């Protein structure tokens, strides 16, 4: 176990008596998977683990735990979600205790699978800059830089922007060189007709499980989602690409300027549909129009939460 993890366990053990639960990670059914760990006892704490394979954004559970004393292990990206939730009054700062860790990057297992040509994975070992992948056919070495989650390439801070405790052990920067081509890059390069065909094909395989919505830490309409609402009747229940894409458009619009691009929607999708790209495209507009990035500053107000008579970057009068 890494020094990192040991120190983290020690920090949590000290604070645990004053907390109802601490959110962390442990390995899933194989070391290539991770699952959120809800620590209430010392025995739970013994299962805690942290590394590049531990991927879930635990802040997604915070709104549902409102009213309880909750500790949460937090990387830089996750802290942006916490800040956004605080800005929207969806959680109370005095109820949460943040255990900060510096991140070494999170691995996207789909990219690992692609990097080895779809061969069946047996094990994945991460080194400092490389990932050693054993498949049915043999062992491959893949640069870590090629198989990270998309959010890692636009990482604002490896350490959390807010925290109460911090694991001091620092790990090296995982980002060297240019980011590999993202889904958004590929979509940007397409003509509108090709882009439409891409979404039509992708949405054709969508099973409407709404894992994207339920994994999203900022989808907080809970059980009153338009996806199943009959009144208003914005979506119909037929499983056509049109209806399914409509839901994605609504999700993206509802999170514009709020989404911290944590990528949980895309990671959770069992069908491998790159739904994060829509949110990234809208956030790019938000950045351009309002010079704003979600979850960076607890004191600021998200641009679509307020009204100014004259926006600095929207020249309505000039356009007339």
């Amino acid at each position, binding site marked *: 176990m890494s020094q990192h993890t040991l120190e983290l366990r020690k920090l949590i053990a000290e604070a645990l008596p004053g907390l109802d639960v601490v959110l962390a990670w442990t390995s*899933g*059914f*194989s070391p290539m*998977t*991770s*699952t*959120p*760990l*809800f620590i209430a006892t010392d025995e739970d704490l013994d299962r805690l683990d942290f590394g590049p394979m531990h991927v*879930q954004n635990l802040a*997604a559970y915070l709104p549902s735990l409102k009213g309880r004393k909750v500790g949460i292990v937090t990387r830089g990206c996750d802290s942006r979600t916490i800040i956004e939730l605080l800005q929207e009054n969806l959680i109370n700062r005095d109820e949460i205790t943040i255990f900060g860790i510096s991140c070494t990057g999170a691995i996207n297992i*789909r990219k690992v*699978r*692609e990097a080895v040509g*779809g061969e*069946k994975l047996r094990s994945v070992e991460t080194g400092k800059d490389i990932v050693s992948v054993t498949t049915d056919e043999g062992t491959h070495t893949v640069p870590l830089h090629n198989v990270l989650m998309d959010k890692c390439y636009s990482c604002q801070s490896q350490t959390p922007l807010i925290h109460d405790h911090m694991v001091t052990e620092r790990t090296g920067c995982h980002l060297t060189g240019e980011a590999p081509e993202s889904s958004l890059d590929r979509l940007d390069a397409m003509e509108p007709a090709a882009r439409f065909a891409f979404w039509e*094909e*992708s949405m*054709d*395989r969508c*099973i*409407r*499980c*709404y*894992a994207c*919505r*339920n*994994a999203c830490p900022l989808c907080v309409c809970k*059980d009153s989602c338009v996806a*199943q609402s009959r009144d208003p009747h914005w979506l*119909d*229940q*037929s*499983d056509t690409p049109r209806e399914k894409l409509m839901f994605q458009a609504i999700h993206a619009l509802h999170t514009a300027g709020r989404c911290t691009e944590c990528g*949980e929607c895309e*990671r*959770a999708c*069992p*069908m*491998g*549909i790159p739904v994060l790209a829509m949110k990234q495209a809208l956030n790019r507009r938000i950045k351009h129009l309002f010079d704003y990035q979600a979850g960076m500053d607890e004191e600021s107000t998200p641009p679509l939460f307020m009204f100014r008579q004259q926006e600095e970057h929207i020249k309505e009068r000039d356009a007339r």
Partner: protein
Amino acid sequence: MSTVRFLKARDIAPWLEELSRDRTVLAPAQHGGTIVFCEFDPARGVELSQLSTTPAKRALLPPCETLFEYETTKTLEPPYKTHVELRPTLPQGKAVVFGARPCDARAMQIFDRVYNGEQVKDPYYTARRNNATIVTLACSEQDDTCFCDRVGGSPVDATGSDVLLTPLKAGYVAEALTPKGEELLQSTSFMKAEGLRQEALNARNRILEHVPERSSFLDMERNLLSLFGDLGFWDKTAEACLSCGACTYLCPTCYCFNITDETRGESGRRIRTWDNCMSSQFTLEGSGHNPRPTKAHRMRNRIGHKFSYYPQLHDKTLACVGCGRCVSNCPVSFDIRNAVACAIQQADAAREHAHD
């Protein structure tokens, strides 16, 4: 004795093209990095290297099907009356499911007891069922998420199949198990191969030798039921669950549905779509009351239904075929094997405590 033929790997696509002329052919294919059970398209080909992400169930229970179409008209006499015209839309035409796995095929018999039983016959389901021929591919090995052997199946189980394919070098030995299967094997795409019957059996036995010895989930229905009132256990079990539908929609045995009237103007259709017991709306009543208000209640239902309620109603057959899709595709890596094993352990401990 049943017919045995040999199908070369390279003859699969031509055979499926031949079948596509007068039937719907469903087969696993690559779809943007995911293997999906979909209508056979020669341009896409078939992908048999790994278990498909989506199961074969859509052949019998499509994600969305029209039950009937309707049109309303206002009558002049007598005034204010609305006349409704209904048009039935029973599924028609034959279908072949190619490349189902033993777990997929076994799951179809789980549907049969519900939709084609003695008391209830669902006309839409039975029409599809009677018109479908299932060609199953025996698995060469189990994935780390597979557990068919723990729920009464096996990687080479032929239950629910019309044809069983056993992989041998450069192709597949095809054995007809039903008259529908016999009919399919008449195609000239197959080679005569009566002598390969024993070789296929040997190959399947070799696969079975690699199935590990491990505890079974059979006969636990009473045991699990005793845990019904222990909501603390289910709370702990379900705490990481996101309440999405990935597990149920990718499950080859989940068969629950929703019915919706989608109306546009004066006409519309009544559709039946997959529903998901992990969603809070699944049991939400018109009054606003919800008998399964938390994800703990819903997880108890999902596990209870598969491992306790269904087997109690249907000759101890579990409503889980151990394909592991719910495990490998869960965004939080929830492991139903672990949950059931813990539940059994907890129930045993509670019973021993009661005897103390």
